[in-house]
């Protein structure tokens, strides 16, 4: 059976070329970069340094401004908590957008508990943050502004250029979570005045468990983990050398190939987007144009999201509902069921919020796979509607109302 993986926003498959680059660091070059008095340690240190330059080159940074981490969550935690603390005693205010990832939002909890004031910026119905609202929110005591580059759930790209310039004028540290966009959209820190940028390797065909935080020279960030002096003191602990090497290799590939990937994804994404429009009462979410290439998100009236995804999976089509990390059922409390905060933020009714679907395409997807999804969708929608009491009522209403 043909299978189509359309959940690249949760993770991308490792590029085989990245795997080849990593392989020696599992088996032959197993040294600890901190133990570089001998050949093995030196080989590891050189590899980590090279990866640092490679990741830096993806966003126009200097190698010394890249701190490796275990992934986007750790990078976002370090950015938010580290920058808030690093800003000093007089700065006790933090500003974030309403559509940030849990690893930014939940990092605000300890800040609030410590007496920080938090301002949450609203978004419009396309999920876009208004730069003017940012300007109004920033204050003399603002330690940090955090606005993501692109939203994983609804695909919207935020105007981080204008927002960054406002932050710079105000002298506020600006953090950009580029987890969903890095390696897919150009982002150059020589043009965008971001002070902190979160990157995740497995979102651009690199390995899981590898991430980085770009820290612009001179930005004050307090460390979050304590131990040795790895990663310039920001992040103690022996580096995951194979993963770091993989992230570097993935960054190099992304830098040279992202244009071609984007073209391919945009083309397939458009076919999917246009094809889905044939389904009655289907509503797209996110910005219609300013969105990640190959990202299609929507909800369908009278159709519940999980049921749709289960049927799609039976047909070999793997997509996701809501944000990838909140759609898992392994959690043990009902909190996991709460409507997606992102959809709430863009004004989708609460009872619909659990029903949103995200198709995120990858460089390996084909037109046939998109066809498979488009062929499967109408029948599934029809089947679920035929079962739905709300659709029955709707039909009766239509019959009566004319």
């Amino acid at each position, binding site marked *: 059976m043909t299978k189509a993986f359309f959940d690249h926003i949760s993770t991308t498959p490792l590029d085989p070329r990245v795997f080849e680059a990593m392989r020696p660091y599992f088996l032959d070059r197993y040294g600890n970069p901190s133990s570089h008095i001998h050949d093995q340690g030196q080989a590891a240190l050189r590899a980590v340094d090279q990866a640092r330059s490679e990741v830096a080159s993806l966003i126009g940074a200097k190698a010394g401004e890249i701190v490796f981490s275990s992934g986007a969550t750790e990078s976002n935690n370090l950015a938010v908590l580290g920058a808030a603390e690093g800003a000093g005693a007089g700065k006790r205010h933090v500003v974030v957008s309403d559509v940030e990832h849990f690893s930014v939002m939940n990092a605000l909890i300890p800040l609030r508990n410590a007496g920080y004031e938090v301002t949450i910026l609203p978004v419009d119905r396309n999920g876009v943050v208004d730069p003017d609202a940012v300007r109004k929110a920033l204050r003399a005591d603002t330690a940090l502004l955090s606005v993501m580059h692109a939203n994983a759930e609804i695909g919207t790209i935020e105007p981080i250029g204008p927002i960054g310039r406002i932050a710079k004028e105000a002298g506020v540290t600006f953090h950009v979570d580029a987890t969903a966009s890095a390696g897919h959209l150009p982002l150059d820190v020589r043009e965008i005045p971001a002070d902190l940028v979160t990157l995740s390797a497995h979102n651009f065909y690199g390995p899981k468990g590898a991430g980085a935080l770009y820290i612009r020279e001179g930005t004050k960030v307090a460390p979050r983990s304590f131990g040795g002096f790895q990663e310039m003191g920001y992040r103690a602990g022996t580096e995951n050398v194979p993963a770091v090497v993989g992230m570097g290799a993935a960054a190099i590939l992304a830098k040279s190939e992202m244009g071609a990937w984007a073209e391919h994804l945009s083309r397939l994404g458009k076919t999917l987007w246009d094809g889905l429009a044939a389904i009655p009462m289907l509503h797209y979410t996110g910005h219609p144009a300013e969105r990640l290439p190959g990202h299609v998100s929507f909800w369908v009236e009278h159709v519940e999201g999980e049921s749709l995804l289960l049927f799609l999976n039976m047909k070999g089509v793997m997509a996701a509902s809501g944000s990838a990390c909140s759609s898992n059922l*392994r959690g043990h409390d009902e909190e996991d069921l709460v409507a997606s905060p992102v959809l709430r933020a863009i004004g989708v009714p609460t*009872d619909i919020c659990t029903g949103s679907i995200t198709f995120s395409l990858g460089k390996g997807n084909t037109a046939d796979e998109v066809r498979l999804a488009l062929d499967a969708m109408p029948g599934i929608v029809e089947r679920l509607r035929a*079962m*739905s*009491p709300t659709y029955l009522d709707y039909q009766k209403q239509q019959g009566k109302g004319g």
Partner: protein
Amino acid sequence: MAAGPYSEKVMDHFMNPRNVGEIDGADGVGEVGNPACGDMMRLYLKIDGGTVVDAKFRTFGCGAAIASSSMLTEMIKGKTVEEARAISNQHVADALDGLPAVKIHCSVMAEQAVKSALDDYDKKHAV
């Protein structure tokens, strides 16, 4: 075929739900919604001589909700009104070989739907 977090039984009832539809002139109709997730279940009962002789449902909800509805209709057919009223969400979940912890509340909708349909029946037949 089991998929993801669900048992094979759940997937079977989800993919091939029994007794989907309505009953014209039903003796009892129950409708419950789940405020946590916005899902909804409607249950129709045909009752003859104190026994549930037919049950049909329509559900807007997740895999667990649809499977619970389907299993419920199978379980209550042939039961007396008293027996049907005694069905709990745990009975439904057990009959489905269990539900993920986070999905237990979906089977609660099934329990509430029978109770609501039987209350409706009582109202209609209280003369």
